[in-house]
């Protein structure tokens, strides 16, 4: 479904991605791991066509999106549902208006039907009680849930893209978000999650890619990740071992 072919991307003359190539099939559950500034979010933005690579090709269902116009990208974007870091809810709209945004924009649904649909979506992500709250009144976990509900209202995606969905959340909320991510992928819909929290990544993903110094240093399954000898990955895995040791104690 997604192919990155020798993709390079720089920001302010700093090369973030150096010749990245990989492919992702429909239904795959992938986690991109890596430190801050390693280009994890950049990969999601490249998939959505929000930024263009300096060189290389990005194929979505066989079509190169790097030369598409903003209008042509609309159909490509509809194949995905992206949830940005911290939700990116519209500050000026309450939860109901945020979730109803796309329904109002693209459908001619009557107001009662929109309200029903919004309630149904909020029920799916278990935040129905927050329907009248403003984004600043929501907790971090509720923010992400509302953002997921809003993205579901926008489209019936083939794949979900999550940008640091559990960052800044307490373990209980992080675990709930992981469960929600797994629930939404039950009917064969894949997802890409970018995170630096390896503990959450191993809960949800089957395939792991580790980014370091602008390159994919590891692309493998859970066993490959856990037995990787690369020092940078070892540092990341120490979080996992620490959590495991705590459990044993």
């Amino acid at each position, binding site marked *: 479904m997604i192919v990155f072919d020798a993709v390079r991307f720089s920001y302010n003359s700093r090369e973030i991605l150096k010749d990245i190539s990989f492919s992702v099939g429909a239904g795959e559950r992938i986690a991109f791991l890596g430190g801050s500034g390693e280009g994890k979010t950049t990969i999601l933005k490249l998939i*959505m066509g*929000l930024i263009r690579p300096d060189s290389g090709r990005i194929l979505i269902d066989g079509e190169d999106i790097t030369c598409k116009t*903003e209008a042509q990208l609309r159909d490509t*974007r509809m194949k995905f549902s992206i949830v*940005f870091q*911290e939700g*990116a809810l519209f*500050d000026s709209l309450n939860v109901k208006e945020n979730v109803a945004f796309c329904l109002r*924009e693209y459908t001619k649904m009557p107001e009662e039907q929109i309200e029903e649909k919004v309630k149904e979506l909020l029920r799916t992500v278990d935040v129905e009680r927050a329907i009248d709250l403003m984004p600043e009144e929501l907790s971090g976990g509720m923010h992400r849930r509302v953002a997921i509900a809003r993205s579901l209202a*926008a489209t019936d995606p083939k794949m979900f893209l999550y940008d640091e969905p559990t960052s800044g959340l307490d373990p209980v909320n992080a675990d709930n978000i992981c469960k929600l991510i797994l629930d939404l992928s039950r009917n064969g819909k894949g997802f890409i999650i970018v995170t630096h929290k390896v503990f959450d990544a191993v809960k949800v993903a089957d395939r792991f890619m580790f980014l370091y110094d602008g390159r994919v240093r590891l692309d493998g399954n859970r066993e490959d990740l856990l037995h990787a000898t690369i020092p940078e990955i070892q540092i990341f895995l120490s979080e996992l071992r620490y959590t495991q040791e705590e459990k044993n104690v």
Partner: protein
Amino acid sequence: MNAKALISDLQDYYLLSIQGILGALQRPFYGKDVIEQMDYAGAGSFFIIVLVSLFVGMALSLQLAAELSVLGLKMYTGKVVGISIIREIGPVAAALVFTGRVGSGMASELGSMVLGHQVDTLRVFGVDPVKKLVTPRMLSAFLMLPALTLIGDAASLLGGYYIAVFVSHQSGYVYWSSVREVLIFENVFSGSVKPFIFGFLISSISCYMGLSTKGGAIGLRSSTTRAVVASIIMIIVADFLLTRILLYVLGFSV
């Protein structure tokens, strides 16, 4: 900033301005957003514009009355205050206040939306951010600044009246007669054209600076500052150019 970056920025600015204008002519129309922005820019700025204009009129009247009384020409205070306010100071003062309140607000709001990925979210949903965010702000500034300038002019003239009558002890009738004398087409037209141009400049510059925000809180501070500074400079430069053109077009000899 190097020349290449400057040219690239200018090109992006022109493009955004044109797209912002075209957004008002093409579907979908975001009427609700325009009304909201008009409320923020217009009703929200009403009090501060009236207050600033009132004191500008009072200060101007005070200065002129002091100078003209030496020459024995105090009765011309209303006329000079009227011309200065209507043709020049009123539009510029209102535009500068508008920049400080509305322009900075536009830049910081859009900048914060960029940093919070809200603009990216709009693009993901297939909504054109220029149409949704820039066009309503440009329209609101284009329509509200002239209205605010008119109100500001009235407040300034009232301030001038207060000083002329209660401080300089002139006749109120003479003051208003002098003001009425200068309310001719040339003067009113000259003062009415400027706010439309200023409104366009403030909103387009502020939206551009806001949407080009990069780099967190410091980037937001920088884009807001740049929006205000660039708008103020452009208002002053545009005011000079417009004055020159209008004087020529309206047949005033310099």
